[in-house]
């Protein structure tokens, strides 16, 4: 199957090209087919590849396909090449499969929009770029996908381009991630200069053989790549763009800003895990960023009133978990959480899209309530998603993946109590904010207007059912470590991602790490019920009106002032510079020579104004001077 790898990204590229060039002559039905079919076909190819990969694993544990040598300058010869190993395979399957489901949903969801063709063209461009990103065998080719997803994300956030706010959000997303990308590019410059290749596998092998454990250059390279990763994955301190990115259509939020693109940073770090294994410092930084982000975003999610922003902060928080896993060298645990998260978070966003549609474009959860009775199907789907997000034990996929991370945060040889504690507190926050949404939106009394739509077409609901099924059963491929059952996922990933060393621990430890997160997540649901479900107005209201809490809630709502800080520290000085520099001071300085030159010219012109008496006077003066000089010598 390795000769058809190119088809996987090429099919969506083709869909994009056809829609761009010929789409204006097409009807909506044709556009829908050409928009969604490539992702489906790519998913089919990916599944076929996966089957052949599993049935007859290649000797190298990877399929490689070289398309062509991009260019060759001396020893520098990057290639347009695909590399498919278990890591890429999981990413590819998720991107194509979840992408296809979301496109199916969109065919009906976006039907009334005037930009129907544009939407599908951009979505195809996104899927193609994402597939290039995860399949690229060369760092330089990876950048094509990396920036391509940035571009499509920009286009889709600003999809409704007439609103200035959407444009600002789109711009912010692109620029902030581009800050990270620049770090990534410098990291690649360093890697090439030191190792002489940008072939990913080659560079990783060279790093392993040439760089010592803890070498400064490895730390520098790892941290620079991490800069790119935190930009794309919206981790502290580059997380500010993601909540605003919710300005795009909801399917975009589901696919790009939840399920796939924002996890590109996780993929990048997992892909270059060799560097992070060489550098304990870089790994620690990743773990700390992950832990800090998951707490930060968890608290922020709790304060949001816009249903999509709440989910966006939740995404940031969940990617924080993945970073935490990466930081303790639990590479495959991070990817496992990516897998389950893609399903339940996409499900949550798609459900939120229907809630918003039902409420006639109302995003504010304070104006919802009681929707359980009006849109029961959406309620059930949302509930499944929220349960998976909260990692309710046994019945959800999120339990298995998050439990693995929290467990390894303690038991991995690179883990520690503080990281574990952050994971546990985060688990409490997660179920608290998830079920805050559930209770505020679907329970209680109706607080806003009545729903305008209560029935949704099958093409919208079925993809969500598929996602819901994934959110429930996917976890069972990997049982918690202490159950001593099977660990299919980790075993499958083992050829690409090494398994972290585990600290030996007693039975008590085992119980602690398995039971505590489970108890905490259930407790979070109960707490949410107490605060927001049972006696909602009384308790939650009284909480927020206390002065300390009001300040806290305001700060959390605003994402703890990062936007403000960046505005004051970066945006405003830049605008000031641009505004005052508009007239190009350097040019004025250089052109300023023209003034004195003209004055000098004017002065000299005076000497030749054609008046004879001045000439005579000057001549006479000259003679006097010469004579005087001659006499005085």
């Amino acid at each position, binding site marked *: 199957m390795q000769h058809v790898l190119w088809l996987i990204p090429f099919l969506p590229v083709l869909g994009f090209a056809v829609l*761009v060039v010929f789409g204006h002559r097409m009807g909506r039905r044709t556009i829908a087919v050409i928009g969604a079919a490539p992702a489906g076909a790519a998913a089919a190819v990916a599944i076929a590849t996966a089957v052949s990969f599993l049935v007859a694993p290649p000797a190298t544990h990877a399929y490689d396909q070289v398309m*062509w*040598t*991009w*260019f*060759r*300058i*001396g*020893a*520098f010869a990057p290639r*347009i090449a695909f590399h498919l190993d278990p890591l890429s395979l999981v990413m590819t399957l998720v991107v194509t499969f979840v992408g296809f489901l979301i496109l199916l949903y969109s065919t009906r969801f976006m039907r009334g929009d005037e930009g129907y063709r544009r939407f599908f063209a951009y979505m195809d461009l996104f899927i193609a770029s994402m597939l290039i990103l995860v399949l690229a065998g060369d760092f*330089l080719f990876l*950048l*094509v996908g*990396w*920036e*391509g997803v940035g*571009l499509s994300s*920009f*286009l889709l956030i*600003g999809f409704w*381009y*007439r*609103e*200035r706010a959407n*444009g600002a959000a*789109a*711009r912010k997303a*692109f*620029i902030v991630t*581009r*800050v990270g*990308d*620049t770090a990534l*590019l*410098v990291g690649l*410059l*360093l890697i*090439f*200069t*030191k*190792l*002489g*290749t940008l072939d990913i596998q080659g560079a990783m092998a*060279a790093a392993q053989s*040439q760089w010592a454990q803890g070498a400064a250059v490895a730390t520098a390279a790892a941290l620079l790549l991490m800069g790119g990763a935190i930009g794309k994955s919206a981790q502290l301190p580059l997380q500010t763009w993601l909540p605003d990115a919710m300005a795009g259509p909801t399917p975009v939020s589901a696919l790009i800003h939840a399920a796939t693109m924002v996890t590109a940073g996780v993929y990048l770090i997992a892909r270059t895990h060799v560097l992070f294994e060489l550098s304990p410092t870089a790994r620690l930084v990743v773990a700390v960023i992950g832990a800090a982000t998951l707490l930060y975003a968890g608290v922020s999610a709790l304060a949001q009133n816009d249903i999509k922003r709440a989910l966006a902060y939740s995404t940031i928080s969940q990617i924080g978990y993945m970073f935490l896993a990466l930081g303790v060298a639990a590479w495959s645990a991070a990817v496992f959480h990516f897998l389950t998260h893609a399903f339940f978070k996409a499900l949550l966003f798609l459900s939120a899209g229907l809630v918003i549609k039902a409420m006639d474009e109302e995003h504010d959860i304070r104006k919802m309530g009681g929707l359980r009775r009006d849109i029961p199907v959406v309620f059930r789907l949302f509930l499944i998603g929220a349960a998976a997000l909260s990692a309710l034990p046994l019945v959800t996929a999120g339990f298995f993946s998050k439990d693995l991370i929290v467990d390894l945060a303690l038991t991995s040889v690179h883990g520690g109590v503080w990281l574990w504690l952050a994971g546990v507190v985060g688990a409490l926050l997660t179920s608290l904010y998830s079920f805050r949404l559930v209770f505020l939106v679907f329970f209680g009394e109706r607080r806003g207007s009545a729903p305008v739509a209560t029935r949704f077409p099958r093409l919208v609901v079925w993809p969500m059912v598929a996602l819901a099924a994934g959110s429930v059963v996917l976890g069972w491929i990997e049982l918690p470590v202490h159950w001593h059952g099977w660990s299919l996922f980790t075993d499958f990933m083992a050829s690409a991602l090494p398994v972290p060393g585990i600290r030996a621990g007693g039975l008590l430890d085992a119980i602690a790490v398995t039971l505590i997160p489970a108890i905490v997540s259930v407790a979070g649901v109960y707490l949410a019920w107490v605060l927001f479900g049972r006696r909602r107005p009384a308790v939650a209201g009284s909480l927020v009106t206390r002065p300390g809490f009001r300040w806290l809630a305001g700060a959390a709502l605003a994402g703890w002032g990062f936007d403000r800080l960046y505005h004051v520290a970066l945006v405003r000085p*830049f605008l000031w*510079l*641009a*505004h005052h*520099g*508009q007239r*190009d001071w*350097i*040019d004025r*300085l*250089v*052109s300023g020579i*023209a003034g004195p030159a003209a004055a000098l010219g004017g002065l000299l012109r005076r000497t030749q104004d054609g008046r004879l008496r001045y000439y005579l006077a000057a001549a006479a003066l000259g003679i006097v001077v010469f004579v005087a000089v001659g006499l005085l010598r």
Partner: protein
Amino acid sequence: MSLVFLLAIPFAGGIVAWVAARWSAAACRWVALASAVAGLGLAVGLWAQHYHMWGAAVPSRSIYVEPVPFFSELDVPWIPQAGIRLHLAADGLSLVMLMLTFVIVAVAVLASWRGVRRRAGLFHFMLLWAAASLAGVFMAFDLFLFYFFFELMLIPFFLLVVLWGHEGRRRAAIKFFIYTQAGGLLMLISIVGLYFIHGRQTGTYTFDYLQLVNSGISGWTGRLLMLGFFAAFAVKLPAVPLHGWLPDAHSQANTAGSVLLAGLLIKVGAYGFLRFLIPLFPQAASDIRYIAMGLGVAGILYGAVMAFSQTDLKRMVAYTSVSHMGFVLLGVFAWNQIALQGVILQIVCHAFSTGGLFILAGVLEERLGTRDIGGMGGLWARLSTLGGFGMFLVMAALGLPGLGNFVAESLILLGTFSVSRPAAIVGSLGLIVSTIYALWLVQRVFHGPGGESKPGTPARLAPREILMFVVAIVVLLWLGLYPQTLIRTTDAATGSLLRTAPAMQSPEPGSSATEAQP
């Protein structure tokens, strides 16, 4: 003799076009287009004929000893008493520049198909005169001959701005003239100085490039001579702080003029650095290496910030040129194979991406009657095809991977990194600022509200206009996905340039690493 035809075709074509304009303006346009295309055909033919020479083994011994990376077509005495010869030759680099010249001139003819009605004959004569003198610049291997073409070029460009420009054209043209003339005169002094010093040292008084290369003049004499060349090329490129003429000239010229200025004229500066400045004075150039790289970085950032702050669309695009040419200066002074290939790619890609943006500005001005960005907005709804083209060009300008500019800029940064890490790192910040101005441009012009309130629907794009954009898109995609065609063409040329200037030698990135591995 084909190199002579590259001079003769545009010049004769220009005269025929001028004469033809007496009968019909259309005939004049067609003649101009045909001569540009004929020149292009000839250049492409030469390229195809010599393509096999460059990819294979690169000459190893001295600079221009067999097998040569370049071919000499004409070398006859012109003023033998002074050692001046008519020496025309071309290598891969020259051919790339020649092909670029004729493509851009053809595009310029297309761009002014409807816009230029006044004195169309003279206009097309000027376009082709510019083409001929540019072709001369890129083929001259005699310093005197080079200077002759270098100055000859100034006349058509000056007239293009002053006769067919916008409202502030006189001031812009005079500024342009003074800047370039000042630089040119300093270079003339240096050329003459080099001629005499070299003559006194060796006994042969000659302007022949191949004999003057790596002249071994060092110390302050060499530095001063080098600075004369530096002044001329830094003005043309332009390098900050000598860029002042560019925003005025680019924004005041008409579309064809801007395309020609951005696509070709400023590339003469880049070509001059590559072909003349460093090979003639390697030691002196290496003395100012870090200053020049600093100027390059300053240009990258300053140009980008300036671009962001402009309100006139053409002025904005003009400042992006300053930023992109900063990369060229950076790469030239990094002086290794990777950086030089990046520079050449940047020269070509910038011509198409920025040329395309100037055409975009022209198309918008024809339809809206304004270049003020504030007066645009919401155009996507009415001109979505143009919006798509604009999006593409803007993405090329900000260096989106997969398009040519990305390859060019990352090669330059890669080449720079092994020479000066701070320069490479600070230069890469330009990618952020370029993102800011690029997104700003596309959003202010095409997005936002306001599309509906304005009366009337602007005319759809004509096939001629679409053709120009498609040419730019095809070239940028091609150079983004398979730049090998171009890199192979200039491989031997850059190799020999590197060997002419051993004093500038810099580590080739990644090579030490590969040597370390058995």
